């Protein structure tokens, strides 16, 4: 028996060594893939784990450039024509014409035409596919799509909106030839969209991307295979310092430059691959296992939307072949005030709390650098949309200066104390007690709900410190460390039953969430505007922002909105976590490692899969 098992071991190891090297990169994933069916993946099963391997096959008319996140044509030929107002059957609509690239082929050799585009827009829209489909092809924006000729489509929308660009024009495109027979069958069933979503596992579905996904061993691994005749192979993406982006596609004889002139300093230049024969996504069910596999060299990189904790980094640093990169993640943790209740409804009160939150102390000293201070709803890493002129309350102050500023704001607004806080020679010598509102009433205990250490030690810690800082100057905030579920149900299910709560958002590059989170009409039950922020000026600016289809103009409004929010503080943004990632330099080579939300961001929609290279195993 022992001999047999030894024999098996030898064979297994030998086979393992053979598969290494030959243009294969191995990734570790921390959770299984639940579906590869695009209808379901962009519907109820929208998980990062499904996206990593699942989205390699599909395309869209427009996309975003690597690293600079500018809107650029993908399968479209140049930009869309300006929106024109038309009236059809008494309805006012706006129409645009989009030209498609000629000569693009699916992996099975079928040419890509307007039929694919029309099919990919009409099916999910007509069937009312749930989830991301509905967000992308929002019925309040999208009306219909019409084929003009094989390489031209007309898109009709109800109103100009940013959603038109970031939703409608970026909606996913599938192959009509493959899906049409399935769609016809689906139409005969009781629930066509369910039929479409459960069809699968679609391993033979043709791809318009750099890879097909022919193998899926459930619960163990997936394999993506490079498309040999990939149309965009050899495409050069050149990003200039002046903001211009030039695309050279040799196979299609195209050379276009957008956003300015192709001149001056070049920031980045990417040449599209694929450079590997296949990508293997190995599924490990916990981070320790994936880290062990990385140490052993079984995988070259760990795909994880949340990054790594510092203990793993300490372990990985011991291996000279492993490189660790840190990037800010795309998201923020915040506290929200319930502006339907007093004193959170008072701007002075909120400003005082905002002054007290010493992010620098919290992130760098208390949390030992496992959090990155962040004070705005748009992080600085989102270069295009970040407003550099915003100055948050208390920026650059020490803790004691913050105490003084907060006390001053409260005093100026007419608050008094039973025992006022006293600061002498840069030290707090007397904690404030019994804060009294300008109307003479004692302010009762204010409950701040925050996740417990079991869910997120960082937020639990932050909550306890905010409680301490507030209590030091007499604001009676009590941190209530509770389960994530409890916070969510208090906020959304129990009709905003909270004083202050602390949670986090994962966000997108195009910041239309600014409007979603603070728009007065979203303050109803279940809405995103949890603080109940109601500012007509903000609403107007936010509307202007999302209705713009010219991004430069949209940015002006976004900045205005960001400034209003910074002044009114319905949220105090606290910090974001760094994306710590590690990869093996002897196995894998990335085109870029400095990116907002880390290397992994390139794997759910941007270009990294077609840029990654395998380091040859030869010695």
């Amino acid at each position, binding site marked *: 028996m022992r001999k047999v098992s030894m024999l098996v071991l030898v064979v297994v190891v030998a086979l393992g060594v053979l598969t290494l090297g030959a243009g294969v990169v191995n990734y570790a994933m921390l959770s299984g893939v639940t579906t590869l069916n695009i209808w379901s993946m962009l519907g109820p099963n929208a998980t990062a784990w499904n996206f990593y391997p699942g989205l390699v096959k599909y395309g869209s008319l427009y996309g975003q450039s690597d690293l600079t996140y500018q809107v650029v044509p993908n399968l479209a030929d140049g930009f869309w024509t300006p929106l024109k107002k038309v009236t059809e059957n008494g309805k006012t609509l706006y129409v645009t014409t989009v030209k498609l690239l000629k000569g693009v082929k699916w992996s099975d050799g079928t040419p890509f035409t307007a039929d694919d585009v029309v099919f990919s827009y009409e099916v999910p829209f007509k069937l009312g596919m749930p989830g991301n489909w509905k967000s992308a092809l929002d019925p309040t924006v999208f009306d219909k799509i019409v084929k003009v000729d094989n390489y031209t489509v007309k898109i009709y929308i109800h109103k100009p909106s940013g959603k038109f660009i970031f939703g409608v024009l970026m909606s996913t495109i599938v192959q009509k030839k493959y899906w049409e027979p399935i769609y016809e069958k689906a139409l005969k069933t009781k629930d066509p969209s369910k039929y479409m979503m459960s069809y699968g596992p679609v391993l033979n579905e043709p791809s318009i991307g750099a890879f097909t996904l022919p193998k899926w061993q459930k619960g163990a691994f997936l394999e993506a295979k490079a498309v040999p005749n990939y149309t965009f192979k050899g495409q050069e993406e050149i990003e200039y310092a002046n903001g211009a982006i030039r695309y050279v596609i040799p196979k299609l004889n195209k050379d276009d430059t957008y956003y300015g002139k192709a001149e001056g300093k070049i920031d980045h230049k990417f040449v599209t691959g694929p450079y590997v024969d296949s990508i293997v996504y190995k599924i490990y069910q916990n981070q320790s296992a994936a880290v062990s596999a990385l140490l052993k060299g079984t995988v070259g990189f760990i795909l994880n939307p949340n990054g*790594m904790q510092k203990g793993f980094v300490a372990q990985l640093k011991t291996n000279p072949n492993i490189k660790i990169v840190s990037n800010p993640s795309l998201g923020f943790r915040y506290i929200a005030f319930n502006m339907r209740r007093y004193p959170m409804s008072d701007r002075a009160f909120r400003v005082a709390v905002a002054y007290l939150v010493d992010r620098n102390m919290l992130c760098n000293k208390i949390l030992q650098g496992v959090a990155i201070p962040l004070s705005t709803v748009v992080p600085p890493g989102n270069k295009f949309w970040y407003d550099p002129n915003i100055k948050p309350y208390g920026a650059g102050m020490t803790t004691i200066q913050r105490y003084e500023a907060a006390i001053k704001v409260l005093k100026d607004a007419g608050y008094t104390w039973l025992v006022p806080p006293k600061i002498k020679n840069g030290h707090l010598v007397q904690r404030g007690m019994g804060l009294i509102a300008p109307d003479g009433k004692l302010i009762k205990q204010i409950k701040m709900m925050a996740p417990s250490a079991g869910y997120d030690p960082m937020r639990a810690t932050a909550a306890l410190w905010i409680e301490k800082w507030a209590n030091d100057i007499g604001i009676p905030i009590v941190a209530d460390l509770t389960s994530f579920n409890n916070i969510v149900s208090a906020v959304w299910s129990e009709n905003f039953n909270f004083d202050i709560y602390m949670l986090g958002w994962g966000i997108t590059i195009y910041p239309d969430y600014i409007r979603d989170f603070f728009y007065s009409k979203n303050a109803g039950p279940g809405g995103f505007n949890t603080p109940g922020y109601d500012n007509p000026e903000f609403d107007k600016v936010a509307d202007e922002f999302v209705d713009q289809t010219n991004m430069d103009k949209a940015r002006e409004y976004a900045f205005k909105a960001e400034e209003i929010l910074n002044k009114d503080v319905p949220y105090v943004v606290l910090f974001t976590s760094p994306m710590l990632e590690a990869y093996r330099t002897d196995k894998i080579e990335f085109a870029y490692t400095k990116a907002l939300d880390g290397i992994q961001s390139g794997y759910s929609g941007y270009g990294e899969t077609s840029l990654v290279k395998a380091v040859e195993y030869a010695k």
Partner: protein
Amino acid sequence: MANTTEGMTASSEIFESPFKIKVKLMWRAFKENWRIFSESKIGMLGLWIVIIFAVAGFVVYPILASTIWKSTSLNAMVSYNPVTGYDFTIANNPAPPSLAHLLGTDPLGRDILAQLLYSTPREFALGIIAALITVFLGTLIGTVSAFYGGVVDTFFMRLADLVLLFPFIPFLIVISGMMQVNLLTLALIIGLLSGFGGITIILRSQAMIVKVKPFIESAKVSGASDPYIIVNHIIPNIMPLSFLYMMFNVTGAIFSEAVLSFFGLLNIRMSWGLMIYTADTAGYIVGTNIGTYWWLWLPPGMAITLICGAFYFIGRGLDEVVNPRLRRR
């Protein structure tokens, strides 16, 4: 009981009161049982471990927290709190054991020894509350079912069957994943689950044996009421067995808490399981980190094993007291 107290006031001057006799008898029985128990090496080992933990948690911790550790507290006016007690003087956390922190610090810079001791009374409370609920329910239901039989019996036995259907740990995971569970609710849930479950079946069969003994019959003939017989005759006779199971339940409760905490499912501020969870999610129990950062997982891991083992050992010692047949001749 009313009779005995009356008797005591009337005749305590002349005779030794029945109450005193009872106490004396109990004392004698206790001494005899203690002798048997103390002969069991394993039982004594368990007892000593429990005593050491109890002293450390209930006596040593409060003293240390309000003296030595106080300086590193979040606000220096109250005693040290191992949930918020970050030590800013240490540049790199987790720090290895040093004079300031005998068992080092955790990834957030909190004292491991303090966390360990702070959790001890809570673990005791959890285990003992859960076990008390279990044994109380089990004993009551077991005796009542055995005594009355019929519908009552069928109902509780089928209920026990139903409860036994739930896989214990997975079921607790489901519960704690969907509602907010803290130590007290956990103790309640574990107590109720085991109280209505297997233990009733075991205690019922024991009560069945007692029920047919002649002294029950004579008590009935002498006109004792049913509750009186249950409380005064049956329960005392199955008490030792209940007590034995109580020891095993303490172990079960503490272990369940550790497992649930390990998956981050409980809403508690500090416990041994949570200490391991913190070390694990921060990535200190992987590869050679296991050896390098031993102080993060070894103390709480040892504590869980020692306490669980100790209560089991006590149970084994009690077993010798309860089951005379097991005693060496």
